């Protein structure tokens, strides 16, 4: 049991390298191996959830994690830095355990969705498994260096997955994605070095996130909250806070650094869009939780207005953009931008409702957005077209499909009894009860919800209702309802979206104690 997390993390990686030994000609073998691997990962993460003790009330971040593995990895002595010590330090708390479970589910569905992949299958599944490992690694890493390694290691597989298997403008999209994210992550790297130089554990400089969150600073460290360090005339802590904010906001993404996302989504093949929207965006959100808020709690109140502003801007600007799209996938991509704005707003409120809502919204969006990309993929597979104007009245021909689309659209716009509602409701509750935010942030966010209702319902009406029409008669024979494989992908997501909408405590119970401690952590340093 102790090594359960390592298995979840490293098993796909090991299989990825084993895949290289299989001759490329055995095309169908690769997907089976990948399916079994990620299936096993999913089962292991269920075991993880069952074994997770959600009643544990931590007293410090050091004791807040379960399934902890802490082994020395790199130990170098350098003249300038002293000891350069990096640990293989992993563990989960109430926040990350949910994201690990979400990851393994979405990754599993991603393999199902890549079932009909025909070109260069070996390379595809090799990269996919590498990506799987690094996504999970981001959520469980408790050593900043390990986190950064996984954070960066997602880029290269993703670059190739979009760049080789993508659409027409794939090379533009993949390079833009890579550059944007690297730009952000180098800001994170600088802060990582600053923190490493200033934080110690047992007398040695450390990358441990737990020690950083507990605030074990050296007395003369530039980043020590009590020492008022300056960097180029700017308070060093504020600068570090803003650097991290930029780094994770690009990944999240928040307006105005979101422009890589629509391009990447439109060009990526469906399964990669699923992983990108379902998980990679959550890595940005998780970074805000764990690193930005975890390590810089004293600045959260000061900058909450900034976070909330960009959150609301994302909600409204993303929504308006989605409203204007004619390409279904682009519409869904912009709706993701809009939804991730709620994560920022919830965090900015610094209330337990808002922060729990933020986490809930990440999980719920992690189910809804993959489903939305999958349903767009259904049309695209049949017609190689996703322009809204080309279709109308699909409900008559594809009733089951239309039912599921409607369900996910309603979940996306936040209709009660569906999971999207709970997250948005809690975030709004947080925003309105917040001591640090003005009321108009919440009011504008509600306006954003109305916009989201508008684009989802409008799309539903244009594409699925009305008189049946498809632009090309050649598509006619392909317009059949969902195949069993597609149902296997979509039904679990639909069931979970409904269940989590009715029983939110199933998720919240896992994170209650952690969120409570998180709030204590924030308010301690606020007072």
């Amino acid at each position, binding site marked *: 049991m102790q090594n359960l997390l390592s298995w979840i993390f490293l098993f796909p990686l090991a299989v990825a390298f084993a895949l290289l030994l299989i001759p490329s000609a055995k095309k169908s073998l690769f997907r089976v191996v990948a399916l079994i691997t990620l299936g096993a990962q999913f089962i292991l993460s269920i075991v993880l959830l069952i074994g997770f003790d959600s009643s544990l009330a931590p007293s410090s971040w050091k004791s807040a994690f379960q399934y902890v593995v802490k082994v020395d990895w790199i130990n170098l002595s350098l003249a300038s830095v002293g000891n350069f010590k990096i640990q293989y330090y992993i563990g989960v708390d109430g926040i990350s355990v949910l994201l690990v479970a979400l990851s393994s589910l979405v990754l599993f569905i991603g393999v199902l969705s890549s079932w009909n992949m025909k070109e260069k299958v070996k390379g595809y599944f090799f990269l996919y498994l590498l990506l799987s490992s690094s996504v999970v690694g981001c959520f469980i890493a408790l050593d900043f260096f390990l986190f950064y390694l996984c954070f960066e*290691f997602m880029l290269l597989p993703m*670059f190739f997955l979009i760049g080789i298997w993508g659409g027409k403008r794939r090379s533009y999209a993949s390079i833009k994605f890579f550059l944007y994210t690297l730009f952000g992550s180098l800001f994170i790297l600088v802060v990582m070095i600053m923190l490493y130089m200033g934080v110690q554990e047992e007398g040695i400089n450390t990358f441990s996130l737990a020690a950083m969150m507990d605030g074990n600073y050296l007395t003369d460290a530039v980043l020590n909250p009590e020492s008022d360090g300056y960097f180029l005339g700017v308070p060093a802590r504020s600068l570090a806070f803003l650097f991290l904010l930029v780094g994770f906001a690009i990944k999240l993404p928040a307006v105005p650094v979101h422009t890589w996302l629509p391009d990447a989504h439109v060009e990526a093949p469906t399964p990669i869009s699923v992983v990108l929207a379902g998980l990679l965006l959550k890595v940005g959100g998780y970074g805000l939780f764990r690193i930005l808020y975890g390590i810089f709690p004293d600045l959260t109140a000061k900058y909450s207005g900034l976070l909330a502003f960009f959150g609301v801007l994302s909600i409204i600007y993303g929504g308006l953009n989605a409203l204007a799209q004619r390409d279904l996938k682009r519409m869904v991509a912009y709706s993701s931008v809009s939804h991730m704005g709620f994560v920022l707003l919830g965090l900015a409120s610094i209330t337990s409702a808002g922060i729990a809502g933020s986490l809930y919204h990440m999980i719920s969006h992690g189910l809804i957005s993959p489903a939305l990309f999958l349903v767009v993929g259904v049309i695209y597979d049949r017609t190689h077209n996703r322009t809204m104007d080309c279709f109308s009245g699909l409900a008559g021909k594809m009733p089951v499909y239309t039912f599921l689309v409607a369900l996910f659209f309603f979940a996306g716009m936040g209709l009660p009894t569906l999971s999207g509602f709970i997250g948005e409701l809690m975030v709004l509750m947080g925003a309105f009860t917040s001591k640090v935010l003005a009321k108009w942030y919440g009011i504008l966010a509600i306006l954003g919800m109305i916009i989201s209702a508008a684009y989802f319902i409008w799309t539903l009406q244009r594409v699925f209702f009305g008189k049946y029409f498809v632009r090309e008669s050649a598509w006619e024979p392909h317009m059949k309802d969902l195949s069993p494989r597609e149902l296997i992908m979509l039904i679990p997501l639909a069931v979970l979206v409904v269940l989590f909408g009715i029983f939110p405590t199933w998720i919240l119970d896992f994170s209650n104690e952690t969120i409570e401690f998180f709030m204590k952590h924030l308010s301690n340093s606020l007072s």
Partner: protein
Amino acid sequence: MKLSDQLQGIINELGAAGTETTLMLGAIILLVFGLFQSKPIFIKLLFAATIVFGIYMNLRPVESGFYISTALYLDEQLVYFISLLLLGGLLILLFPRDQHSVEFYFLVLSLLVGCSFMLKANSLLLVYLSIELVSFVSYILTGFNFRKQGFEAAIKYLLFGTLSSAVMLIGLALIYGTTNTFFLSDWTFTLFSSIGSQVGLLFLCFGLLFKIAIFPFHVWTPATYQAAPSDAVALLSVAPKLAGLLLLRRVLLACELTLDHWVTEVLLVLGVVTILVGTFGAIGQNNVRRMISFGSIAHSGFLLGLILAPSGHFDKEAFWWYSAIYVIMNIAAFFIVDQYERKGILLSSDYFQSQKSVWLGAVFTLVLVSLVGIPPLAGFTAKLFLFSSLWRSYQVDGQVLQAVFLFSAVFATVASLFFYLKVPKNIFLSPKAFSQNGFADFSLRSKFIATLFAIILLLAFFVPSSVMNLQMLLHNTHE
């Protein structure tokens, strides 16, 4: 004192130049035997044996101190770096070479002798001579594929080189005139209080910056890298650069310059400008060799940053790491470029997509990504050490230029991704299908060697102590 004792003393002292003597002897033997027996395998073996013997001589225990009338200085650190350069020279053997191998390897050995003397020089005369030796060999190697383009580049290199060596000579004259000493070891900070000696110092540095390829002395680099034969470029991009950096380091140490001295500040500013010029220069390049050359100019800037960290905090380990990894990355990159060129694929603006070269393309991508500095490759650790070192020295000295340096380095890293990515983009992502007929796959040997380079880069990231222990290993072999 008896004559025999005196002779013994001289022989003992000569031991300090044992490496160089070995290499020179080897070079001469190579040249003489090459007249009769010019089978490539024989020449290569002789070359390898010379270098291995040179490394052995280099690693013999020698006490750190001054030798041969204080013309040479030697310490443990220098010994490691000389071994590193010689190992780099050994790696050149991996490149196929089918013509003029006798002369080529003779020149390479001479280059290594020059570099080795550059590291050890304590007398200004030796400084000048060794730099000139390295320079002249470099000019010849640049034109060594006997094509018009190569001659052009060589002449360009020669002209710039002559100019900078003249400037350096003026510098040496100024220093000698004001300080009255030829030896670095006699320098003190007070000797450099006059403006004349400081200007002389700056001019001396200019001569070294030319070898390192720091702005504005970098102009020869792209043409040279483009025109010279691959194995020559691989060595030229590594050995003179590191030798120049280490000599610069010793010069700055010798005159005890503080970080806020105007000469150091000029060097720091040049470092920042070099990073930016190298990076943004590379973005516009279509030819892969020119692109890597601009990239290596940027790397010179990064390395200069490590050198200029204040004396108390000079990061020997970080510099060792960066240089060792840089040697491997650069030689690997040119090795792969060479493989493509041998297939007639000039990696210029018009790339090819090829199913068959997926493996080599992937390895090339890894090497280039390591040059950018992205985990999980050793280049990232090098960048991490660089940033840490800069941040540390900023923290200690609070000098704004250090911070500016740090941020230019960070931005240059992002921007460098953009141009290095052009290669995988054109190999893997371009819609043009590979259409050249009769394309044979790369030989197993070349794939194997390239993969080995990539594995070293990966391994060095995951087990960084391996690179550090290389020092220890070298240390232990001579005990």
